[in-house]
């Protein structure tokens, strides 16, 4: 049990450094408006002014509406596709997985720009098909549409893994006992996959209410604003309202906490232990007559969610000029040449981002496993705190974590500070993306029967050996997937990087952002294409390697 206590302390202090510090700084700033000037005076003096602003209710309402709509649509899209993929033999399954991975590989700010170039008046759609969807795109519906396509793969992969893992196998048992396929699905597979589905939908909700780029770019002119855009505006637009922004951030955190509690209620008091050491060979079901409709569904979703934005990005990257439009004469590789010849800037940025992404993936993977173990296995009072702390970053938009880290580390009293070095970027990424490994490892651990560990203990294995030889290999498929996710997302993170990158350190996202800022969309899109291709192949390589090990 002493080992357990050490583990608990270790986990808590890591969470303290990575999560509590920046969030605490924001919280203190929200309470003490003059904190940035080093004064503890007038606590909550700005509360009335910020809360009495009539725009606030609208911001909250819009945020909830957006989150709910994106969750609903992601569920409608992700659950059926995930079930089909997990339970049935879908032709070209790995190919569809790859295509649905693509939206993850395309950073949201680039995807939004891609959709604009595609659908706005005189965009690529109009150039090809003669009509545009500008009115739809630049509205609430447009924001929901684009964001759903960006995030629904979270649900798809969670559902398909859950179904393929344990849920499907037990459904086979149901079939053996004479249940018809539908009954087995509704009564066995679906309920068993519920924690995974709920967790993924929670993730989608959090992603939706904290996403900045998409609503800002698409709907601000339609008069649609959410909490995050309100925070960003108070943080970065003159005149800067640090206390107001911090207060709105706290509100956003509270909202996501409610979602978290709801998910807890939903899955509480049930046991999901399905991995009990008994071997199971599971044959995916044949689709039969449903093969074609299923394939059509996959193809339609993939072409809208993945191919369309990718086409727009590539078309822009290979166009000599934007005003030249889609024509053979306008075809050019000059944006790619420009990237290669800019004194190695682009390659350096790429290396920086990949290393930071790798570092963040390893650190969050380790910490995520520790957190999940503490939460699922240790029956101490600290577990609820640990669980809540590890989920908190989900509710903090990048801009908040960035400012929190500045507020926390840009202080005279630290003997040494990561501020103004690349370490602060790593800290930011670890904080922002910790929830992914935690959620995935949590869900995986919940499915592992405790008697496996007990068996190891009986055979004389200590806790470390049990962790390494029993739990880690069993959790690894889920944890590894989450770490890949972290790698992919961290290596393209924009908002916190914008705030925190020290002079001379340039990440891929900053490189692309500066290209967009300078008006060279083509070069920005060329760099985006390179990044997307690179991260996608890394993910493919890793997953192939993992496949061959099994």
């Amino acid at each position: 049990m002493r080992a357990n206590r050490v583990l608990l302390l270790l986990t808590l202090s890591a969470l303290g450094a990575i999560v509590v510090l920046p969030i605490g700084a924001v919280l203190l700033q929200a309470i003490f408006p003059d904190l940035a000037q080093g004064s503890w005076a007038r606590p909550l003096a700005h509360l009335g002014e910020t809360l009495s602003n009539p725009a606030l209710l609208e911001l909250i309402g819009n945020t909830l509406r957006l989150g709910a709509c994106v969750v609903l649509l992601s569920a409608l899209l992700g659950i059926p596709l995930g079930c089909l993929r997990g339970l049935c033999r879908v032709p070209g399954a790995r190919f569809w997985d790859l295509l649905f991975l693509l939206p993850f590989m395309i950073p949201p700010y680039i995807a939004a720009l891609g959709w604009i170039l595609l659908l706005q008046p005189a965009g690529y759609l109009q150039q090809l098909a003669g009509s545009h969807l500008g009115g739809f795109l630049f509205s609430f519906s447009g924001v929901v549409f684009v964001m759903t396509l960006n995030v629904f793969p979270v649900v798809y992969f969670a559902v398909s893994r859950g179904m393929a893992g344990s849920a499907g196998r037990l459904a086979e048992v149901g079939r053996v006992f004479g249940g018809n396929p539908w009954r087995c699905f509704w009564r066995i597979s679906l309920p068993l996959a519920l924690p995974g589905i709920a967790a993924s939908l929670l993730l989608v909700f959090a992603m939706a209410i904290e996403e900045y780029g998409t609503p800002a770019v698409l709907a601000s002119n339609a008069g649609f604003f959410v909490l995050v855009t309100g925070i960003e505006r108070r943080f970065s637009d003159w005149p800067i309202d640090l206390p107001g922004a911090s207060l709105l951030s706290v509100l956003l955190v509270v909202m996501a906490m409610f979602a978290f509690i709801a998910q807890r209620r939903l899955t509480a008091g049930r046991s999901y232990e399905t991995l009990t050491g008994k071997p199971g060979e599971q044959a995916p079901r044949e689709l039969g007559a449903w093969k074609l409709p299923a394939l059509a569904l996959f193809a339609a979703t993939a072409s809208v969610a993945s191919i369309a934005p990718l086409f727009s990005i590539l078309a822009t990257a290979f166009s000599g000029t934007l005003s030249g439009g889609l024509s053979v004469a306008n075809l050019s590789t000059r944006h790619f040449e420009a990237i290669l010849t800019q004194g190695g800037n682009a390659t350096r940025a790429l290396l920086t981002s990949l290393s930071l992404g790798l570092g963040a993936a390893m650190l969050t993977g380790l910490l995520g496993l520790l957190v999940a173990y503490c939460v699922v296995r240790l029956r101490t009072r600290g577990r609820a705190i640990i669980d809540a702390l590890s989920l908190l970053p989900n509710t903090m938009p990048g801009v908040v974590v960035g400012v929190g880290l500045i507020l926390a580390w840009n202080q005279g009293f630290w003997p040494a500070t990561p501020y103004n070095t690349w370490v602060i970027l790593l800290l930011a990424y670890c904080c922002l993306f910790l929830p992914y490994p935690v959620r995935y490892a949590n869900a995986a651990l919940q499915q592992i029967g405790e008697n496996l560990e007990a068996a190891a203990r009986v055979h004389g294995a200590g806790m470390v050996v049990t962790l390494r030889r029993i739990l880690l290999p069993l959790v690894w498929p889920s944890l590894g997937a989450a770490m890949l996710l972290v790698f992919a997302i961290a290596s393209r993170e924009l908002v916190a990087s914008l705030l925190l990158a020290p002079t001379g350190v340039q990440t891929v996202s900053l490189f692309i952002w500066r290209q967009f800022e300078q008006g060279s969309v083509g070069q920005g899109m060329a760099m985006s294409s390179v990044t997307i291709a690179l991260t996608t192949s890394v993910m493919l390589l890793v997953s192939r390697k993992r496949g061959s090990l099994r």
Partner: protein
Amino acid sequence: MISASWESALDLDKRGWLLQWQSANAARVPAAYKGPAYVAQGLSALAIVWNPKSGTPRPTDWADLAKPEFKDKVNMPDPASSGTALELLSGLQAAQGDRAWKLFEALKANGMAVGGANAAALNPVLQGAKAAVFGAVDYVTLAAVAKGENVEVIFPASGTIVAARPMMILKSSKAQEDAKKFVDYVLSPKGQALVADVYLMPARSDVAAKRKPASEIKVLPPEGEGAQAARKSLLERFSALFGRK
């Protein structure tokens, strides 16, 4: 430090944060573009950027963009995120008073979209989704035109603002000698030629610009005292008019 906003130099100097030093090479920079602790690196002007393929008549002044032909076809960078757009707003109000607000109301009624920084306002015009930008930074667009983009930079007949980009050295800098050498270099004929290469107007009057020089652009009259202080309320009025939250 180089900033795109002249104001930031004035503000930092007022706080006493800037090193009081003037490069010897600043001698040929006009007096309007230097101070005791800061000097312009180059100048840019705000302009109308117009896409000739948009099917709209060529605009010649700001007010043209409020005409029915430009309904829903105009973009403007957000003054809250673009310092130069705020200076234009302030300059127009100083020069035209209430007429400037009538213009903005007419533009709003005509469906002008406000958002983002300069590139965000410009890109839709390049592709043709919008016909014109109200108040685009000229050198960015001129660079795009030089690369073959089919748009035109038009300096409005009633005048625009010329924004100087100040260079300054912070007193707290640990590399002041290197910083001085850098400023000297930027203000040397060689450095100013590099400034001209990105289609900015060089700060030195004796280095030729590669585009329309400041002397041929009609400039709005300088603002009076107190205009600086009024910016916050100006921005609030503008944000309210265009429904920003």
